[in-house]
């Protein structure tokens, strides 16, 4: 009998961390720094070209997985970080809140991508 559900949560943390490590820097760079400063072509943030990517089922899937798992990565790491910062009480409540926010974000992503 599995002693702990931690392996499952840790797997979400690990998957989200891996996705974030590979994808977050280039996305932040492109959308938040390069395009606003004119270093990237205009079509990077054109409604038409982005809409094309997001309409594709593969695009929706990748974006959903990326957003959901990076939020799960945060939830897991943040709940431990709060403990490391000296907040020793309410660990279960904090856990519920953190994963709850990650679930809420996932649901929001599903809604947004469904109607895209």
């Amino acid at each position: 009998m599995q002693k702990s559900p931690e392996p499952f949560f840790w797997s979400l943390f690990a998957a989200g961390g891996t996705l974030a490590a590979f994808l977050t820097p280039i996305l932040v760079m492109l959308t938040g720094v390069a395009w606003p400063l004119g270093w990237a072509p205009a079509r990077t943030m054109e409604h038409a070209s982005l809409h094309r990517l997001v309409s594709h089922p593969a695009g929706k899937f990748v974006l959903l997985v990326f957003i959901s798992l990076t939020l799960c990565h945060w939830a897991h790491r943040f709940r431990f970080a709060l403990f490391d910062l000296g907040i020793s009480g309410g660990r279960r409540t904090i856990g519920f809140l953190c994963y709850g926010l990650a679930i809420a974000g996932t649901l929001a992503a599903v809604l947004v991508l469904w109607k895209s």
Partner: protein
Amino acid sequence: MNAIRPTETSAARPFQAPMPATWWLKKPSYVLFMMRELSSVFVAAYSVVLLVLLHRLSQGPEAFEAFRSGLKSWFSIALHLVVLAFALLHTFTWFNAAPQSMSVRLGEKKVPPHLIAVLHYCAWIMVSIAVYWLLTRPAAP
């Protein structure tokens, strides 16, 4: 489980100093650890921004234009630079820690940890180039 207990004398009075909440400020490696943990906040923050971007995108060109122009403000660019710094901290600490998490052996020999890290960095560069291409390639005629 058998606990091993020392012979207690009347004079035994073990002392332990409590651990302060500022323990992580005492050593540079601890500070780096805490910054690494907090990088997850910035990673998640960007995913939320991305979610908002997708939401505005789905609302049509006018709504998206309002969002887009917000990205051009100096405030937004500065925030994204902070997010980028923490995202890079996450990437570097993740890839540098990866070799310790896996034990890749070829028979007796262990694959050198540096090689595993270097392979991660190479894959990261290739993925970044692919994403750049995907987002900036000319539209199909």
